């Protein structure tokens, strides 16, 4: 056994090898990212376990008869966040609302990511005319403010859950496409790609097994941040009255807009969904920032 080999084995044991393990170890030491991670896990658990942890059903009448024009009963031991304007337990609605906000946020960010991924990598790797056509289309979409584009799409498709997912997803496509194209362009000129091409690896294999894995890290960061924006956009659409068709759906943005006339008499009904939106968005943003630092190649090797 040579000395070199021994040293190599030592290095293997001490420092994590590979981008992801290194990133993970750096992420673990970043307290801010851990807070974000905890928040996201908390909301994910709340969403998953909603039927078991919510004290009441989201549309169960627990005290409409106690409501008057000056408002419904406020927070109490039985109803921690009070009763909403239609006599339902506000806490239960917030808990069930996590399902809608996270699900819509996740699906729309994921769909925006996948479509953007395909378009961006094709444009970046193929170059030439295809690149021009795809990227100019993306530029047109980027020229329209995201929320405005989403409003237009919802107005066109009608209100409903999947329409909102489509709308928010579409606004995410150009962001991912652009990001990935830039990343692919950088990787395309790397020596290992040149080497792969030289030994005759097929174009598709080069793209999928060599370029994409190396170009993906900024997309992961953007993906977490996109989740955050998606949750805000969904709430924004709900607030503008373009939320789910059923007004009884416990969606946070819709819940906010339904109480805006009663802000003075029952402020907690607006504060609760507002805080839920802020915390979940904060969670994703903190993770995103943590990931960005962890995956930054300039910081690589420094623990």
């Amino acid at each position, binding site marked *: 056994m040579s000395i070199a080999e021994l040293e190599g084995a030592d290095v293997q044991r001490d420092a994590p090898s590979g981008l992801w393990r290194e990133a993970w170890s750096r992420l673990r030491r970043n307290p801010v990212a851990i807070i974000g991670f905890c928040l996201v896990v908390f909301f994910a658990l709340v969403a998953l376990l909603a039927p078991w942890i919510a004290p009441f059903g989201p*549309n169960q*009448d627990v005290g409409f008869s106690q409501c008057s*024009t000056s408002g419904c009963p406020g927070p109490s031991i039985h109803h921690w966040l009070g009763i909403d304007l*239609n*006599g339902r337990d506000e806490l239960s609605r917030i808990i069930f609302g996590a399902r809608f906000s996270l699900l819509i946020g996740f699906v729309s960010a994921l769909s925006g990511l996948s479509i953007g991924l395909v378009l961006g990598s094709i444009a970046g790797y193929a170059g030439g005319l295809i690149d021009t056509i795809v990227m100019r289309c993306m530029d047109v979409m980027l020229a329209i403010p995201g929320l405005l584009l989403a409003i237009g799409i919802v107005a066109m498709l009608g209100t409903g859950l999947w329409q909102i997912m489509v709308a928010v997803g579409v606004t995410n496509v150009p962001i991912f496409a652009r990001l990935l194209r830039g990343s692919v362009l950088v990787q395309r000129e790397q020596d290992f790609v040149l080497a792969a091409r030289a030994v005759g690896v097929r174009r598709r294999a080069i793209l999928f097994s060599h370029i994409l894995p190396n170009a993906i890290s900024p997309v992961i960061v953007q993906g977490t941040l996109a989740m955050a924006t998606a949750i805000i956009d969904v709430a924004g659409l709900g607030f503008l*009255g373009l939320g789910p*068709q059923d*007004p009884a759906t416990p969606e946070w943005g819709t819940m906010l807009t339904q109480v805006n*006339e009663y802000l003075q008499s029952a402020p907690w009904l607006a504060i609760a969904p507002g805080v839920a939106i802020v915390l979940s968005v904060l969670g994703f943003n903190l993770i995103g920032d943590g990931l960005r630092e962890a995956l930054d190649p300039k910081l690589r090797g420094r623990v």
Partner: protein
Amino acid sequence: MRKKVVLFALLAIAVAVALVGCGSSKKSSKSTSFVFASSADPVLLDPALVSDGESLRITNQIFQSLVGFKPGGSEVVPQLATSWKPSANALSWTFTLKTGVKFSDGTPFNAAAVCFNYDRWFNFPAALQNPAVSYYWNTVFVGFAHPASGGAGPDKSLYKSCTANGDSEVTLNLTRRSSSFISAIGLPNFGIASPTALKKYKADAGTVDSTGVFHPTGTFATRNPVGTGPYMLQSWEPAVKLVLVANPNYSGPKPAISKVVYRAIADNAARLQALQSGEVQGIDYVAPQDYSTVTKDSKLQLLKRPVSSIGYIGLNQAKPPMDKLLVRQAMAHAIDKAAVIKAIYGQTGEVANQFLPPSLFGYAKSGVPDYAYDPAQSKALLKQAGLTLPVTIDFWYPTDVSRSYMPDPQRIFQAFQSTLNNSGFKVVPHSAPWRPDYLGGTQSGKYQVYMLGWIADYYDPQDFLNVHFGSKTPLFGFDNPKLFAMLAKADAEPDPALRTADYQQASIEVMKFLPMVPYAWGSSALALNKNVLGYVPGPIGPVNEPWAALHYAK
């Protein structure tokens, strides 16, 4: 340097002048002008071509009809006519007109002017015959001289002709007897306009768009509405303000307030804030949750109107299973009216057990079937009708609207949705913007179940019952000749006592047949500065609330 001094001096003078100007204008505004805000802009200022409350609020100050209504009530009182009497067969009504009356443009008001107006309405071109434009002529007089294709012609019209007997007597001839006719012509929609102005400013020229809004090419309905009322239009900048000034040719006593500024502030909270800050001196449509804020404020007064509107859940019988009486009864038992009124209407509503508000004659004091909130009963009725539970219904509610009979539609809808889902139904929610989609959808019979209501135009049961249930309409989609005949008979009855009895019977019949489920009688309220006196809130709301009687406390 000297230049600077001169500039400074000029500036100082300008500021001084401005300050003095402000001071004096403030003083005059206190004594003679009044700023009022409601929720929307008027549509047009030609009363014959509008049906919304805000347009009629303004035109009611500019125009006068042959007869009017007592402020705060529904009693018919003289206005441009001092007296009137029907012929023996009640087909001709002769009106004696006030003398010495002039329009605000100085032209004289006389019998010929009355006939000119009635003939103008009767001879409306095809575009203006659209019920969305000339809604009230369509409702009250039905037919036109030259009907548009498919429209009602002179044979269907209640109006036959108008004859001027000299300058101060006019006869209106009808094709059939109608007891509600006198109340109906008191509507501000039948306000008499100056024939000279109508011709000069091309009142009838323009186009009607697909949503039923008239876009005039002339300026009568936008800048030059000329009538005999206490006020005349000075300026109107849509979405900014509308200014009325005292009409120098008005025949009655000069109004104490010489200038009224009208503003539209759509947001309830912002409107109240404008009043609290002194920006305006009066607002309409105080939100139910703000009633206590106004009554607690020592500088404000709250004026409540008597209940005069009905909120109901419409059931379109052209859409099964609403054609089954048992299903309609199940709907009625599945609504918790009392909880909805308490939580959402508060002091602005009362639980309704029938279509007519209690203050209107024809209201049935007893004998009305009672449909108490009872989910078990509702489920039993649905099973009895041979349906499998849950029964899916398409339930519509409007967005962007607040009406006295429906202060917060979406919240009321959710309350209904919750109890209906517990009573054997499965509600599929749908919503649409109030104007034009929602109104169009209900009127054309597209919706199965929907929330709607009615505010009195003139305080007569005909305006409630006959308008809704007197003939086959797409709105309710039923054909019930027995009910139609009953209502036609009630409207034609000249004897007031018998007429009341007929309408009471019809009210009960409607509740047995259940073309809709009434749930609330609604009212609305105004808030004014405490020093504004003379405002009389009436059952028909802004349509009959003259500003000429307003004055400030000394």
